[in-house]
Structures are given as C-alpha cells and as structure tokens.
C-alpha cells in the first residue's frame, strides 16, 4: 500500500503476511500420503531411497525400469571409439544428478592446474592410484613422473618474471643488517623440530665484519604456514599412510614420517616438480616398524614438543602492515640480543637468553643489634580484671592496649548501607511494630522462656537472668559462697575469660551503636522490668551504647553496689544487650499486635469523615448547567506512600497513618453511616426528599405519599435552596432524566449523638439484654410484620407528632393506604427526619431504608438510567437481517436488554446490602 512508504520509515517487510486463519472456515483436508511427493526439476518423482535401493531415481516404484517396464539398453558397439576412450573417469559414469549439489560428486569451481597452488584433484589422484596398481609394473609410476613435464604454477611464473629467484624470499630488497634473520624464527611459526641455530649465528658473526653499503639483498625465504584445513579424524599433525606416497616411494626414500612438520604446502607451492625430491614412494619397511637388525631407529617415535608450537595467536608485529607469513623476516624476528649470549661465559640453557637489564637488587637492611641482656623469652602482659579496677584505669588500659578498635562502622558506599540507613535517606518512617518478638509475648511466657534459657547460660558462664528477685537472691547466696573460690579461679582464668567479656562488650557496642538501633527508639525490650532500678541502669547503658560510648557499661553501673554485684550486673547487661539487640526489628515488624481493644470499639464503626454535599442541589445545578462550585466536592484523600513513590511524587501527607479518605468513628448502630450518599452537615435546611420530585406520570414511587409533607418542609428553606429547589422542579419537569441514581437521602439535621441518644432510650424501653434486637427487626422484619409493631407502638406512644398523625388519618381510610403508611415509615422519609428525636421508632425504621430501596430504584432505573453496557455482538446482526424492523421493535429489544442488565445490577446491589448488614450484625452478636 502507498501508506507504507510514508510511515514505515526504515522498516522492510519481507514476504506477504499470512492470511489470518478464518475461524468459520472448515479445516482443509490433510493431503493423503500418496500425494505427498517430491519431484525433481524434470518432474520425475524423487524417492529417497537408501544407497542399496538405487539412489535417488532408481527404477519405478522400487522396481527396475520404468512405468512401461524394463527396457533393455540397445547394444552399441564401442569398437570404433576404443582409442578415444582410454581413461574412463568416474565422472563418465555419473549423471547430472550425481554431479549436482546433492549428488555424490558435486561440481565445484576450482582453480585450474595452472593456477592451483597445491590442491590436488582428489578424483584424479584416486584414479591414478588405481591405475598405478593395475599398471604393468605395479606400484610404480616413476616413468610417468619422469615423463611428465615440470610444471610450475602461475604464481611462481609471475614471481620469476618479477625477478624472483628460487630460494629467495618475497618482498622489497633490504640491506644486509635488516635482512639478517634466523631461520628458526620463520620455521617456528608452525614449528620445526630442530632450528638450525648454528648457521644463523655464524651468519650473524659475519654480519659484524662485513657490511657493504649500497648493496641490498633479497629477504630470506619464508616457510609458509600451512592453512590446509583439517578434515580427517586423525590426531593433530598425523598424516596417515598415504598409499600414493607409499606406493611411489623408491628404495632410497627415508621412512615415512607420519608426522610432517613441514607442510605439504611448502612443496605444493612450487608445483609438482619438487615432490619428486622428497617422496620417493614405496613401502620401505620402517613405516610398519623397525626390523630387529636395523639400527636406524632414533626417529621412529618422533617426539613432538610443545615449544614447537606457538602458544599465542598472531603476536603483534610492528610496522607498516607487512606482516603475516609473507612478511620480511625482520618483522617476525624476536627481539633477542644474541651478542649478550655470546658474551656470557657459562652455558646458556636451551630456550633461555640473558636478561637485557639487570634485576634491581634488593637492599637488605641488617637486623637490629640486640641489647646485650636480651633473653629470647616472651612475657605475656598481665590481663587486668576490668571489674576490679576503677573505670578510669580500665579505660586507660583498654586504650593503651589498642584493641578497642571497633569505632563507628566505617561509612561505606551505598551498598554498605543497611535498610535502616536507606530508610533514613529516603525519609521514610521507621517500621512500625514491636522491636522484638519478645515484646509480643506475655510476661509469663517471657519469664518461662528466659527460665528455659537460663540453665544453658548458667553453665556457659556465670549466672545471668532477667532477675526475678528471689531467683537472684538464691543465686547471690550461692554466688557468695563461691565467691572466694571464684576470685582465685578468676585470676587464673581471667586471661581466658576477660577477653571474651571484652569481646562481648565490643559486640554489644557495635550492635547498639549501629544505625539500626539508633533508628528505633523507645521500642527496646525491657529485660529487667521487675526491678525498676536495674532497668533504669540498663536503659542508661543502652542509651550510652547507642551513643557509641565505649565505657557505657562502667558508667551505667551503680557505684554503690558491691564489686561482686556490679560484676554480675555487668555480665547481665552485656548479655541482655546482645540478646535483645535491635537487629531483630525487621523481623519483628512482621508480627502485629493482637487487637486487645476489641471491646472498646465494639459499638463504633469507621465511616468517611467528609461526606458529599446534597445530591439534589447538585442535580438541580446540573439541570441548570451550573457546573462548578455547586457540583464539585473536594475531599482530603491520602494516597498510599508506595503509590506516590511509583508516581515519582512526594507523599502529600508524609506522616499520615492511613490511606484513602479520612475516617471517623461513628456510632455503629447509626444508620446514617451506611447511607453513603447523603448527610451533608452543611445543607441542613434542604432535606430534599426524592419523592418530592415530580416524577413522570405513571411512575409514582411509594415515596410520593410523603411528598406533601416534604413540600411543607421546603417552604421554610433559605432563599438559596429554595431557588435551587424551584430550579429542580423545573428541570425535572422538563427533562426525562430527572431521576435519582443514588440512594435515598437522609436528613442532614440529624446529629449522630441525638441518634445515639434515641437508641439508648429505645434500648431502655425494649429488652435490656439484647439491645440490637430492634436493629435486627429494622433490617430483617418484613413490612407486614412491621406494620403491626409500628401501629401498636404508635398507639402506645403519646408523642406522635402532627405529620404522622396526618398520614395516619389518611391511612385510616383503607388497608392499602395503611400499607403505604408502613412504606412511609420504612423509608428514610424526609419529614420524619426533620423531627427525629421525638420519634424513636422512626429513627429505627430508617435503617431499613437502604434495604428497601432497590425495588423502587429498579423500577425507576428501568426507564431511566443504567450503567453503560457493552453493545451485544449479536444485536446488529439480527437488526440487519431484518431491515424492516421498526425502531419501536428495536426499542423493545433495548428494554429487554436493560432489564437483563438490571437484574445483574440488582444482584450486585443486594450483595452490597448484605455486606452492610453483615457489618452491622457482627458486633452485636
């Protein structure tokens, strides 16, 4: 399409897109097996026979011949062609399929013999080998070799034309000095066993003497690297017995070296003519082992050493790009100064040369002179028991000893930061929750736990426990008895134990002075809660630890206590500090405290603090198209901290502990909490009942009954709301959409506390034991049930006010109207709400409002509004099929769909109601 070019930019489309699968399309029949054939380019069937069944195009369906049967070939005499057909090559018996890409002898483009450097015609060689065997003198083609003209390849010819002579290297002529080279460096490129060192050195010596100017020499010849790819499965360097070479070998030839160190290439570069010099052919015995009497066995097992090989690929060569194996040899030469080697008198190990520059000699300092009276015996420092000396001395000792090393943890990179530090940097609040799992335990449990732990700690070192008093006394008694023995033992053992205590102190210090501990304050576990003094001392100790005070322990102990007690307490504190170290905060935040105050909150429930303004005002405003202030409510809303983070926005309420709309606790039994629409404290004067609205004819809701009263109410409204209400009437009169999607409104004048008061009254009136019974009734009791109760109640209560009275008088006329009355009371009727305090049962009936709403609401909505639906896929189909369908029929369809939808919706609503009910009921039960 043309649009591709403009919008596609640099994209390229390959091929054509597959046709998307047609869904309704029936699946294509699978191709039967006998039709799945492969044909060659001539249209013949190709069957993939194996080697024994005749190749690709054998016969006709596994038979011989063709479809017509086997046709014998007609005999053609070749008598005349005898001379011409001297040497039949294998190709002569091949057809084009065999020579094709997938045939047994694929044709490929090769260089002709003139230009070929060395690659042999494999087929031809084979043929030659065969013919040589069948030759009159078997195994000898010497004659042929002799007769064959010496051929040199085109490359060599070219070189010769350019002035190259055999034995010279290729490249620009160089001066003598530069031309100097070592043969081994060249051969080393691919490894030759024994570099002819002597000759080159002798050359080098000559160089020094004779250096004529203006004379240039050709660079030395280079041994080319063999690039022949390895195609066989032999080991590296192994060549195998070449029958060709073996057969051709003469008696004078050396043994067949299976490992050729110099490559075939060397020879083949210069054409076939050189081959004769080396390879004589013929099996000479040695190839198959050495005879017992033969002494020429040094070389049979050729020892290959790794130094023949390069260990590095492509070492860096200097200069002008003239490197590689054809490079002039000065580039390949390793930098060795052999003059030095020569100067060295001793024997140089093979493979080593003298270093060019000397190693720097290390200056050795003489050992210090020992004083005369030095005795090589080590005195260990006496370890001072820290508990027995004054803090000052202890500190002095500690610092002098120098292993108070653990200072503030060094400020590392951000990877060293722990979670608390990161939290600090991010400005987040600390994790809420108790600092330790122990906090969550009851005191008794904690004691039991510590009691369990005590025996083990006692055995390890001294008594320590979170001192319940009597336990401590017992331990003290035992301890005093043991004190003397201990004191002496301590001296002996102090060298062992003191460092341990020291270490523990250090550990405590490092733990508590860490940032994790700093972050959480006042959440530490109090192990000595039973003895406040001790706990206070412990707190002091912890505080000082947090500040990184080194002698926190000494400072926090009570100086008036005895030495022994202090020692004990010291021990306890350190252990406690280690045990309840703050690192467990991350763990502890995973536990939450059980809510103990269930009973306290039982009769309150959380509802959103801000309530929307009156809906009717808004509806009126909408009708008048006065969008803006009238239709807008703004609430405080708290986004989740994480949500803010994800939106890259600072938390607008950083400290707020909740999410969403602020909630307030309200009386649980107040219905008004659950009338989610409604209840605006501001619009106190506009109860605006829904029934008041002049609804469409023929659609009178049950609320209409109370409409008159509502109208009465509206008379006393303030000007604004009156204006609004007038507007509302206008608007709803004109527009068909004047309806209420929302639930019934309740009267805003009703204050929660008055409701509660009413409730209390009610509770006193009714059975004391189950205060929520009325609530049950209000919710569950059917209208008929309520009828009787309300009427009886209404009679018994004298404070029935005028409005109700009026309704009742009307209702008295017939049973249907009395039914209406009941309906009236069950609805959150506006007149009722105007005087709620005098009318307890009305207040209690209101809760059934939301429950009772759905039916009328559904009726309304059916004609008016409903949630947007998705167009049913099939609707238009039917419409289109019957184009004569009138709009009215369409409408009918519409309605049907609406109904369906409403059913679903109603269902949802009911669910919601149920939820609300559940909420109300649970605490009461």
């Amino acid at each position, binding site marked *: *399409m*043309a*649009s591709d070019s403009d*919008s*596609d930019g640099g994209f390229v*489309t390959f091929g054509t*897109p597959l046709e*998307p699968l047609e*869904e*309704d399309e029936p699946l294509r029949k699978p191709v039967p097996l006998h039709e799945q054939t492969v044909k060659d380019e001539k249209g013949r069937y190709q069957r993939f026979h194996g080697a024994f069944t005749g190749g690709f195009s054998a016969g006709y369906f596994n038979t011989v011949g063709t479809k017509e049967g086997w046709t014998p070939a007609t005999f053609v005499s070749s008598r005349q062609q005898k001379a011409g057909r001297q040497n039949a090559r294998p190709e002569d018996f091949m057809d084009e399929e065999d020579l094709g890409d997938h045939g047994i002898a694929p044709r490929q483009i090769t260089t002709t013999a003139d230009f070929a450097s060395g690659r042999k015609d494999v087929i031809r060689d084979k043929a030659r080998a065969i013919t040589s065997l069948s030759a009159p003198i078997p195994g000898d083609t010497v004659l042929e070799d002799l007769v064959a003209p010496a051929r040199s390849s085109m490359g060599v010819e070219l070189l010769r034309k350019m002035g190259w002579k055999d034995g010279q290297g290729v490249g620009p002529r160089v001066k003598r000095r530069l031309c100097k080279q070592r043969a081994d460096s060249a051969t080393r490129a691919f490894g030759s066993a024994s570099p002819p060192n002597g000759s080159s050195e002798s050359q080098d010596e000559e160089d020094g003497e004779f250096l004529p100017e203006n004379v240039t020499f050709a660079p030395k010849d280079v041994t080319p690297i063999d690039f022949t790819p390895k195609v066989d499965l032999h080991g590296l360097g192994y060549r195998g017995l070449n029958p060709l070479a073996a057969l051709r070998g003469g008696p004078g030839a050396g043994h067949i070296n299976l490992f050729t160190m110099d490559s075939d290439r060397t020879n083949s570069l210069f054409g076939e003519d050189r081959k004769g010099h080396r390879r004589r052919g013929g099996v000479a015995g040695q190839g198959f082992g050495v005879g017992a009497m033969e002494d020429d066995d040094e070389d049979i097992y050729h020892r290959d050493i790794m130094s023949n090989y390069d260990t590095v690929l492509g070492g860096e060569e200097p200069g002008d790009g003239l490197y590689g194996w054809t490079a002039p040899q000065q580039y390949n030469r390793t930098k060795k100064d052999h003059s030095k080697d020569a100067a060295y008198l001793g024997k140089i190990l093979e493979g080593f040369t003298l270093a060019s520059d000397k190693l720097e000699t290390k200056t050795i300092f003489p050992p210090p002179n020992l004083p005369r009276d030095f005795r090589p015996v080590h005195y260990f420092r006496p370890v001072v028991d820290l508990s027995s000396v004054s803090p000052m001395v202890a500190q002095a000792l500690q610092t002098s000893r120098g292993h108070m090393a653990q200072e503030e943890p060094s400020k590392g990179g951000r990877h060293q930061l722990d979670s608390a530090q990161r939290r600090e940097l991010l400005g987040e609040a600390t994790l809420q929750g108790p600092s330790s799992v122990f906090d969550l335990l009851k005191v008794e449990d904690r004691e039991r736990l510590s009691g369990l732990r005590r025996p083990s700690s006692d055995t390890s070192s001294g008594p320590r426990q979170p001192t319940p008093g009597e336990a401590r006394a017992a331990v003290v008694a035992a301890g005093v008895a043991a004190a003397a023995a201990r004191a002496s033992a301590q001296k002996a053992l102090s060298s062992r134990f003191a460092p341990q205590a020291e270490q523990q102190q250090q550990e405590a210090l490092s733990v508590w002075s860490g940032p994790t501990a700093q972050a959480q304050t006042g959440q530490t576990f109090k192990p000595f809660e039973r003895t406040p003094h001790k706990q206070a001392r412990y707190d002091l100790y912890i505080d000082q630890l947090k500040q990184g005070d080194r002698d926190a322990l000494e400072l926090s102990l009570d100086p008036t206590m005895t030495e022994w007690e202090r020692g004990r307490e010291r021990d306890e504190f350190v252990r406690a500090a280690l045990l309840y170290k703050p690192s467990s905060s991350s763990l502890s935040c995973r536990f939450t405290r059980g809510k103990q105050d269930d009973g306290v909150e039982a009769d309150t429930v959380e509802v959103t603090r801000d309530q929307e303004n009156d*809906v009717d005002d*808004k*509806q009126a405003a*909408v*009708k008048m*198209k006065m*969008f*803006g*202030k009238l*239709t*807008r*409510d*703004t*609430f*405080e*809303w708290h*986004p*989740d901290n994480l*949500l*803010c983070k*994800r*939106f*890259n926005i*600072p938390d*607008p309420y950083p400290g707020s502990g909740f*999410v*969403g*709309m602020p909630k307030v606790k309200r009386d649980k039994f107040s219905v008004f909490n659950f009338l*989610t*629409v409604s209840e605006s404290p501001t619009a106190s004067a506009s109860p605006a009942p829904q029934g008041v609205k002049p609804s469409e004819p023929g659609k009178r809701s049950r609320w209409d009954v109370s409409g008159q009263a509502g109208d009465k109410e509206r008379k006393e409204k303030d000007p604004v709301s009156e204006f609004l209400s007038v507007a509302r009437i206008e608007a709803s009169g004109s527009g068909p*959409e004047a309806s209420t*999607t*929302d639930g019934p409104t309740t009267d805003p004048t009703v204050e929660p506390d008055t409701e509660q008061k009413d409730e209390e009254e009610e509770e006193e009136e009714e059975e004391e034991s189950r205060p929520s019974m009325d609530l049950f009734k209000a919710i569950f009791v059917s209208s008929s049930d309520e009828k009787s109760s309300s009427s009886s109640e209404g009679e018994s209560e004298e404070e029935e006010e005028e409005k109700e009275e009026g309704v009742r008088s009307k209702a008295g006329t017939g049973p249907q109207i009395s039914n209406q009355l009941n309906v009236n009371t069950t609805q959150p009727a506006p007149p009722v709400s105007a005087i709620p305090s005098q009318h307890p049962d009305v207040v209690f009936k209101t809760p059934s409002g939301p429950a009772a709403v759905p039916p009328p609401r559904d009726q309304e909505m059916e004609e008016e*509004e*409903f*949630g*947007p*639906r*998705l*167009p*049913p*896929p099939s*609707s*238009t*189909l039917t*419409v*289109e*099929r019957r184009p004569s369908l009138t709009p009215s029929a369409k409408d009918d369809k*519409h309605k049907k769909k609406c109904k369906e939808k409403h059913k679903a919706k109603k269902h*949802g609503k009911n669910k919601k109601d149920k939820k609300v009910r559940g909420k109300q009921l649970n605490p009461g039960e």
Partner: protein
Amino acid sequence: MSFPQPKPEVPQLPQNLLRTIDCQQGAVRAVRFNADGNYLLSCGSDKSLKLWSVSRGTLLKTYSGHGYEVLDADGSYDNSQLCSCSSDKTVILWDVATGQVTRKLRGHAGKVNCVQFNEEATVILSGSIDGTVRCWDTRSRKFDPIQILDEAQDGVSSLKVSEHELLTGSVDGRVRRYDLRMGQLHVDFINSPITCVCFSADGQCTLTSSLDSTVRLLDKSTGEMLGEYTGHKMKGYKLDCCLSSKDTHVLSCSEDGHVYCWDLVEGSLMLKLPVGKAVVQSLSFHPSETRLLTAMEGRSGIGVRLREMVVWLKSDMLLLPWLKYGINE
C-alpha cells in the same frame, strides 16, 4: 522578494478511510493506539487481545489468556508491556514480545471495565464494575494492589491517568479526580452515568461523556463546564469519547453508527463520520497525527459475522474515496 508559501494546513479531522481491518475476534470491545501511535490494540469479545501494525494493517501478535471478553487494554510507554482487563475480573500484564502473561492480577469483584498504565508503567490502574479502582504494582512481586480506591458508589466505567492525577468516571454519575500531588479528591457531579473520561492534552480540562447523550468539557481546576457537545446518541452503551491530538476537536462514538466531531471551542458539529450501521463502540485518536481509530461492534455479511476496526486517516492519502459529510448534510 518572495515570501515562502505558507504551509498547507494539515486537516484537523480525519475524513478518509485509510483501512478497515477485520479483527476476527468477535465484537471489538476497545481499540487503542499505543503510546507512539504506530501500533494498535484491539480487545475482542473472543477473549483475545490483538496487536496490529497501523501502517501495514497486519496482525503482529495475539495475546490470549483471558477467560472472558477483553474490555480494555493499554500499552506501556516503552512498548514492552501491555495490560488488559476483562470480564473475567482479572487484569493481565503481558510481555509484548513473547506474548506471555507476566502477571495476572486478581482482586476485582466484578468485570474490569478499564485499565491504564501510569506514565512509567510502574502502576496499573484498573476500574471495575465493583466500584473500585485498584492500583497494581508492576514492580513488586506482590499480587495485592497498592491501594484500592473505593470512593465510587457504582461501577467505574472509565479511567485515565496523567502525570500525577487519576481521573475516574463512574456509573454513579460522578467524575472523580484523585490528585496525588495535592492529596485531594475532587468529585464532579454529572448526574448521569459516565461512560468515558479524558484529560485534554494540555491537562487543563477534562472531557466526560455520559449516558444523557452529552459530552461535557469541564475545567479541571474549578469543575466549571466549558463546553457541551450534543447531537449524538449515547443512551445505553458504554461508548468512548476523546479529544483530537491537538485539542481542537471533540470526538465521540455514537449509537447511530457515526463518529461525531465537534469543534472544541464553538461546540458546533463539524463532522459526522459514518462508520457503519451498528454502534461505534470504541475510538482512539492518534497521539500525534490526524488519525482516528474506531471499532464497530458488528457488521453483518451473509452468514458470516464480520467485526470491523477502522482506521481513519487524513485526506492527503486518498486511498479510498470517501464521502465527506459536513454539517449541512
């Protein structure tokens, strides 16, 4: 001295049919351009979500994994992820390239009407018929939403996210704008179930279409109505509306098979694009060019049901002659 010729003004309204794609996925519930407008997503009632190339009109990938019809989808800014929501109450985060479900987010109590990524695709917001908007974290491995916005009293039908604001339209007839930066919730009362809400490109206005067959342009900060656009028919279906890429026009689907285009300032009907005979259910305007994407829920052939998705292009590429419908017609 000759002045350079003024550039020919690019037509602001799409008038020519560029391409019609048969999505073959039942009714197309929603069509959406991706962030740069080169690809489009079609949500089908056959539980599949399909990704198309706009320029070639070829199907690039089909994402299947929903258990019921797909209702809305959105692409991340970097085109690496897709999210879609469905009647099966789930929101699925897809990997675009592999077509695998990266995350299947459950939690809504009803079918999920709308879904959106935030700007950096770190949060998926989904609005459901259960009246909640759930904010799902795409970064963490938690499957719980970060926050549930349950202020709506009825189903949430539409949802849009801007840099720091969240605009939701609900069937309770209210448009709620959650301002994360200020920590405020603004509720605008429309008095008719909202079918679609949009931010304007300048971020100063909001566009709401409701079932009283009216599209309203409201000032974002005060809630005052700046414009009202009527004439189309939107009575029962949840149809989309949108603004053109340069905020010059207001476009809305209609149940009479047209797309209505009004001038934003004057409020006059500029164009009535005929799409088909059925309800135009969804539309999406190209983020930078004058291109409109519409989805028609059904068109009937003989025995074969075809579902159409139409791409409209501006008039400089006359591929198919298309009648121009003006106001006077």
